[in-house]
């Protein structure tokens, strides 16, 4: 038994030496190239769907950092998505700030909001934190409708904004330009997340998730790290919200129901919650599955969606990324075994 437990890391170590980084880089390059060519292979409406996928992926990447890597459950990320979207919409509506400059502003505001929300959330663990965040998500649409903010938020009618055209005279229509704009943000945020998670900060986050007491004993400032993680996570989701506002060219309180937060969590778990690439699979799932469900049954599309989720959780309890990793490990083991003979 003990030997078996020890076996995996050993095999992994050998296997890692067998899979040189060149393959990894080629894989990433292939995915990126596909992502770049994609808008020219499909129609405008499909391009906007894939823009939405990228946006959801960024939002869920934020949630993965928080829940998957730091162990804090949030059922309220739809609220940060809404804050990001409204920041962009209000700035576009009231000021002359160009759309591309509103995105980092939305990110910064959500970073602050998330950090502040993280402070009281420190006293709450697990389920209690989940409840606090769900309250936040429930409150957000109502706050957006609040009379006192009407002149800013447009109240229940929301805000309509203009879609951006491609800059520098690029021969791209609006759909394709928004797609590339989202892609640039997605790539940048993935690189940042990777650097963050694979370094000292990431180790501290994971340590807090796995054993908070031990982490504190090792000298990790748990309070600071937890709040910071909350802030960074909110920033990611806020940037996604800002991009979402640019894509839809419209925001309203009804665009950000509690269901949106739950959808993010479902997507994260389906994709694989403690992974970066899982966010993209989860995003594909929440974008396209409801459309399939609608095609299968007009009577109960929610139920069909639920069946999909349950089935996937049975088949892939660690998310889609878990399956890929499992296959990868098997393949490498097979390669190692072959070498030994």
């Amino acid at each position, binding site marked *: 038994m003990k030997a078996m437990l020890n076996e995996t890391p050993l095999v992994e170590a050998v296997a890692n030496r067998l899979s040189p980084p060149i393959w990894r880089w080629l894989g990433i390059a292939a995915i990126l190239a596909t992502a770049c060519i994609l808008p020219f292979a499909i*129609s405008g409406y499909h391009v906007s*769907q894939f823009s939405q996928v990228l946006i959801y992926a960024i939002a869920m990447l934020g949630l993965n950092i928080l829940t998957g890597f730091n162990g804090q459950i949030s059922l309220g990320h739809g609220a940060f998505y809404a804050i990001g979207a409204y920041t962009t919409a209000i700035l576009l509506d009231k000021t002359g700030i160009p759309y591309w400059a509103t995105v980092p502003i939305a990110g910064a505001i959500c970073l602050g909001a998330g950090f502040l929300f993280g402070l009281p959330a420190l006293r709450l663990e697990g389920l209690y934190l989940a409840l606090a965040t769900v309250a936040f998500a429930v409150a957000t649409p109502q706050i957006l409708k609040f009379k006192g903010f009407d002149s800013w938020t447009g109240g229940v*009618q929301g805000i*309509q904004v203009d879609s951006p055209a491609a800059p520098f005279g690029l021969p791209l229509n609006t759909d394709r330009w928004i797609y590339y704009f989202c892609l640039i943000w997605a790539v940048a945020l993935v690189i940042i997340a990777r650097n963050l998670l694979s370094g000292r900060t990431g180790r501290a986050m994971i340590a807090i998730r796995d054993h908070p007491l031990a982490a504190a004993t090792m000298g990790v400032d748990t309070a600071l790290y937890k709040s910071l993680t909350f802030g960074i996570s909110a920033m990611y989701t806020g940037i996604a919200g800002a991009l979402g506002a640019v894509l839809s060219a419209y925001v309203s309180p*009804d665009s950000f129901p509690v269901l949106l937060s739950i959808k993010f969590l479902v997507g994260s778990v389906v994709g694989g919650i403690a992974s970066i690439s899982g966010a993209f699979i989860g995003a594909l799932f929440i974008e396209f599955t*409801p459309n399939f469900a609608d095609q299968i049954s007009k009577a109960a599309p929610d139920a069909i*969606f639920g069946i999909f989720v349950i089935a996937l959780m049975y088949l892939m309890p660690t998310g889609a990324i878990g399956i890929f990793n499992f296959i990868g490990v098997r393949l490498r083991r097979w390669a190692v075994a072959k070498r030994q003979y």
Partner: protein
Amino acid sequence: MPREGNARKGALLATVLFALAAATAAVADDTPGVTATEIKIGNTDAYSGPASAYSVIAKLESAFFKMVNDQGGVAGREINFISLDDGYSPPKTLEQVRRLIEQDRVALLFNTSGTACNSAIEKYVNQKQVPHLFLGTGADKFGDYQHYPWTMGFQPSYRTEAQIYAKYILKVKPNAKIAILYQNDDFGKDYPTGMKDVLGDNFDKMVVTASYETTDPTIDSQITSLQAAGADVLLVAASPKFAAQAIRKAHDLDWKPLFFMTYTSTSIASVINPAGAQNAIGIISAGFVKDPADPNSRNDTGMNEWRDFMAKYMPGADTTDGNYLFAYAVSKAMLQVLKQCEGNFTRENIMKQAANLHDLELPTLLPGVRVNTSPTNYHPIRQLQLGKFDGTHWVPLGDLVTGAGN
């Protein structure tokens, strides 16, 4: 290596870009969605999510166009009605409408559901110049023919309804103190606005308001404070659950104001009976759709036409649900527009005919309610019938009243 990779990728990208720029120039189509044998009509509704009760409307519409096809279609063409789920989420509506227009290539959009959902697509649809007809919302803003010439509402707006109540109040109680309880959303907020349209500068003097959120457990305290303000007229703009609470609370407080109820909450099953029918006697409301519970409707030609349709095309559906009557009326209006096109189904002509309806009567609308449109009138129904609850059903009160529309 990365630098070289980037250069190569850039070159590839540039090639694709040029190929594409050349290809896009060649696409042109006169009347999308219309062939010699078919007309495609697009629709979105909330089949999933919190507002899925509205999906019965789109289901009836699907069945209605099936009936039209069984009877030979319109101008020799079958109607292909494509209805998609948006879960009542505005960004999803935009996505589905883009699919309908760009991929399915529908000729027009019909009765897309929800105020915020329609707000999300209004601009896009008008850019694409696709007829966006008879929307499933009572918000007053849809019908702005100057800014959105391709978007046309259908039912009387809530604001029109409030104007009609205000006129009635001024007639019977010129010195009234009016209390308004409204739901804090797009639906409820139209009522104070409509009152203000009629009362003008006297609004602040004559009216006290209180609002509630749909998440509030009760509206008891609001009713109490409105009574304490000395009001002798009460207008309740609330969804059914809260409307029933309001009736009951006013009764418990022994408050007997001149009581007005929004037309969205006049269902005997879901409002009056829970509040106690005795407590609701004397309440005034307005309507434009017939009441399936009305015993007089048994011999009504229009209602019998509707009942025959329901029996044949929607067996098993709940025929006490007023949404089916509304859906039948709006589908009939759509059919009339298509017939008036006389085989010329360009988008321009569809829009022209939609704005060219004169005194159209629909089988499930109250007698005398007529649909009228013109290039400067995008609010097809502007009439409402006041009615008073007599303890068992709604009795007409006076003649049909016409609101201002805007």
